[in-house]
């Protein structure tokens, strides 16, 4: 093929009115060794010009693989076995490598999830953004360095990076996560592609940043007239940012339609269950969450019938025998289900087990007294002022016996550091943790080691927190063995009963962690934490690594366990809905300080700190009908460095209400009610007394 015909193909259909992308009957296979996985099965979808299609699904649903198939970038061993992918009317399946390359980056671009690993750590930002422009494509030479640099600068400005000409010389690690994601978007958009595939573009980011990035993508997409495939597991993101939705399950598109239509008139049982199982900010805390039993099927298996049938409450014999055909519910709204639902589940009418309330003792079981954690960074050696990261700067609160305390805040606010200090994994720089009237911090190592049984922790990443070379039985017996509890046989009995408590069969004892699913591993994490019958359980992001349908199972289990055992727990999460569901009281952390604390209902219902209000406003609501009060009190910008926190109120640099006082006087906690306190000079709720509003900032010179 000659050079001219290549550019002709690339340019053809530019003015046509047909869809940008048309996928029909696409099936993908990945062979690795003897294992054959079919991650995408007979998938058909269309994307109109300038449209955003949200593809939603859980891990392994094939949503990312679909995106990679469009780009012709399937992993090694992967190939399209049938079907077609047409971009601008042109068939991409079977397209030879050099023509595909000419399209990639220029016509079809991709935004990856994790900007830390997706940017080359050893090359400058400017070069990386310029690269798609500078590549010679199908005979046409790339852009000159100077010309590209000018475009890059403009693009970086467009994606909201301040001082683009300076940032171009930075390396990726010098930027924050949000800024890196902007760079990724700049790379994708630099050639003004007509189709952008964004694979979980905001999953690694905090809610406050997530909202900004998604708005940026929306705005640019509109300005540049691109179509976008937004791959995500987050229904809230879909509801707010997609024109149409495709729901994928086990490699198949099970339902698709206009966003509002699909949310209002959900027809597939899986979509319905998925939507209902997401804990929301309005969740009824008195009852179990709706959960989908079981786990998604193994994609190595040949499937007969509907893949969701084993987990579906409405499944019939027909469901297990035949795969349902795509049926139209309304123009443009299709679903594949034999026993379709009619609309969303009305949660209130479901027979969900009520969760018992607890008698919360007045006596505090756990007390944190002015806890501080600082650690040195960099420099240090020889004649230099030691710089320290102030991870936690004076946090005090107490948790009563049987109470669950929730800690929320953005990543880097110090909530995990606090959690580690509570269970005495780290020693605080100052302050103390008091357990049942006894200071754990000043305790001797020997005394502490027996006390540890009472302080247990459940980790976020169960894959990393379970020793891969130990069987589950050994993992569960280990804490008992260390504390010298019972004989070997008794310990095994205990492990078995722990497994039963977390809803796993005894056969799991002989398995290794990698043989289990994410949800099962997290159950093991909980069982291990419970092995020693602790009085205090700290759960650090207990469900954030889990898929939506598994998440509610684990949350229900944790809630029930807390109640039954009368555990005193501290739940740490960036997910406000999770904390709201689990916690009786909640503390909001910002840059090492507690800015608001109170009863969960009060804090969520009438937040008093502008930061809390901003966090709540940034949570994407899985309901497209809800008006987007996007700018109302939204927290803008990024977390300042914990090495040099702002003077006075640490939040003032991002606060819409900040005044001069905020820089000069550090706000002290003041009561809103008996059970609600806020540390703010301009609280959103009236305070009871104005006794001491704050302490003057001390230190030399002007406040920064």
């Amino acid at each position, binding site marked *: 093929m000659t050079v001219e015909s290549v550019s002709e193909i690339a340019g053809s259909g530019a003015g046509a009115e047909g869809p940008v992308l048309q996928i029909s009957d696409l099936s993908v296979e990945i062979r690795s060794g003897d294992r054959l996985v079919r991650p995408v099965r007979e998938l058909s979808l269309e994307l109109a010009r300038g449209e955003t299609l949200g593809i939603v699904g859980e891990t392994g649903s094939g949503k990312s693989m679909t995106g990679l198939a469009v*780009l012709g*970038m399937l992993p090694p061993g992967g190939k399209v076995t049938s079907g077609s992918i047409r971009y601008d009317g042109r068939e991409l399946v079977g397209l030879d490598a*050099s023509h595909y*390359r*000419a*399209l*990639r*980056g*220029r016509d079809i*671009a*991709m935004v*990856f*999830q*994790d900007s830390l*690993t*997706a*940017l*080359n*750590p*050893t*090359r400058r930002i400017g070069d990386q953004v310029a*690269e*798609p422009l500078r*590549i010679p*494509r199908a005979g046409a030479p790339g852009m000159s360095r100077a010309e590209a640099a000018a475009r890059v600068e403009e693009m970086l400005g467009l994606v909201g990076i301040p001082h683009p000409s300076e940032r171009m010389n930075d*390396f990726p*690690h*010098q930027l924050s996560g949000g800024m890196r994601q902007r760079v*990724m978007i700049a*790379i994708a958009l630099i050639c003004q592609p007509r189709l952008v595939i964004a694979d979980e573009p905001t999953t690694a980011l905090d809610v406050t940043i997530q909202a900004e990035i998604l708005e940026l993508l929306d705005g640019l997409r509109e300005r540049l007239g691109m179509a976008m495939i937004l791959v995500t597991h987050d229904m809230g993101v879909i509801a707010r940012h997609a024109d149409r939705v495709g729901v994928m399950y086990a490699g198949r598109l099970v339902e698709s339609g206009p966003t509002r239509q699909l949310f209002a008139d959900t027809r597939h049982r899986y979509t319905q269950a998925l939507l209902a199982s997401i804990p929301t900010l309005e969740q009824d805390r008195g009852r179990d969450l709706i959960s989908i039993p079981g786990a998604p099927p193994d994609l190595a298996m040949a499937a007969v019938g509907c893949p969701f049938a084993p987990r579906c409450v409405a499944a019939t014999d027909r469901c297990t025998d035949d795969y349902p055909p795509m049926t139209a519910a309304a123009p443009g709204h299709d679903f594949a289900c034999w026993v379709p639902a009619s609309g969303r589940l009305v949660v209130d009418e479901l027979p969900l087990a009520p969760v018992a309330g607890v008698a919360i003792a007045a006596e505090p079981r756990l007390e944190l007294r002015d806890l501080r954690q600082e650690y040195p960074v*960099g*420099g*240090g*050696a*020889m*004649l*230099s002022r030691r710089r320290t990261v102030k991870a936690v700067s004076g946090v005090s609160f107490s948790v009563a016996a049987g109470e669950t305390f929730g800690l929320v805040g953005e990543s880097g606010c110090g909530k995990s550091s606090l959690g580690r200090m509570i269970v005495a994994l780290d020693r605080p720089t100052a302050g103390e943790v008091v357990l049942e009237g006894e200071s754990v911090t000043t305790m001797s190592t020997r005394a502490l080691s027996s006390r540890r049984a009472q302080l247990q922790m459940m980790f976020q990443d169960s894959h990393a927190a379970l020793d891969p070379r130990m069987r589950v039985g050994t993992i569960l017996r280990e804490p008992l063995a260390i504390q010298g509890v019972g004989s070997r046989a008794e310990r095994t009995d205990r492990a078995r009963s722990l497994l039963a408590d977390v809803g796993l069969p005894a056969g799991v004892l002989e398995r290794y962690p990698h043989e289990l699913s994410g949800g099962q591993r997290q159950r093991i994490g909980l069982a291990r934490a419970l092995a020693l019958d602790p009085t205090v359980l700290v759960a650090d992001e207990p469900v954030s690594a889990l898929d939506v349908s598994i998440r509610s199972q684990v949350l229900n289990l944790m809630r029930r366990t807390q109640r039954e055992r009368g555990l005193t727990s501290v739940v740490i999460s960036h997910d406000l809905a999770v904390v709201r569901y689990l916690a009786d009281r909640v503390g909001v952390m910002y840059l090492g300080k507690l800015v608001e604390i109170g009863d969960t209902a009060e804090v969520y219902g009438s937040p008093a700190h502008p930061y809390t209000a901003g966090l709540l406003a940034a949570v994407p609501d899985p309901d497209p009908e809800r008006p987007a009060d996007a700018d109302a009190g939204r927290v803008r910008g990024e977390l300042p460095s914990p090495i040099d926190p702002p003077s006075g109120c640490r939040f003032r640099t991002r606060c819409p209400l900040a005044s001069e006082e905020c820089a000069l006087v550090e706000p002290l906690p003041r009561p809103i009610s008996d059970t609600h306190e806020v540390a703010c000079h301009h609280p959103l709720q009236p305070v009871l007394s104005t006794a001491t509003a704050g302490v003057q900032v001390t230190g030399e010179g002007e406040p920064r």
Partner: protein
Amino acid sequence: MTRYVLGRLVVSVIVLLGISAVVFFLLHIVSESPGRIVLGQRASPQAVAAFNSEHGFDRPVVVQYFSYLGQLLHGDLGRSYKLNESVAALLRQNAPRSAMLSLVGLVLALLIAVPLGIVQAVRRNSATDRVTTGIAYVLYATPGFLLGLLLISVFSQTWQIFPAEASQSHTMWAVFTDPRAMALPVLTLAVTSIAIFSQYQRSSALEQLGQDYIRLARAKGLPERLVLRRHLLRNACLPLITLVGLMIPSLLAGNLIVESLFNYPGLGLLFLNSLQREDYPVLLAYTLIGGVLTVLGNFAADLAVARADRRIELTK
């Protein structure tokens, strides 16, 4: 950065002092009486004692050590017992030859091993990959002297392409102009390094190939050749830089075998001969050079890694 370099230099000096002290005292234990070695077994005890007191060898060992250090500061490494030359002069003659041998061997090894490792990673588990890995392990396990002998027997005796003896010329220039004579020594030195480096490079490249930035480079429309050259190469070489730094002193040891095998008058051969002659000042100097190279090799590697990977901040 400057502070880091200064800090490292201070630490290096301390390490080298330690090495010199340990070696000095060990050698003192082995040979308390240099006079006996210099004058021979037949010399009278009086003559030996006179020699020792003339050269200060009868002083307490600690005093001797400090006077040795004092001389070191003035660049005086002492005099050879047997060769009637200063140790510094001996090193001046021999070190450049060793350095050239090592350097050529090292560069050759890297030029072959880096692309080889990357090719293996790109074609992982292919026949090419497996065969290469197999050969690499065999070569890695082969002792240097055996390898050298095999090379001599094949290339020098059977086929008579290369001479079995390295260049004996005393000027560096002549060594340069006689590349055929250097072929076998360089090859012997390089082969083992190639085996190690390529396997290192392979696993590091494999790890990097799985990273998202490689996928992003492909999604940009970059041809595979450029993906490898612009994105993979530098990142995959980072661990190798450290390894090369650590290997620099062992190249010196490798020289020892190669130089004696091919009769190449470098530091290694000087060391071996001095060992047989019980020429302790030369041995001491050689050991110190080993220490200096170890310290410098590590230091240079750390600087190079920090230069290549800006995520690494040099702090102590």
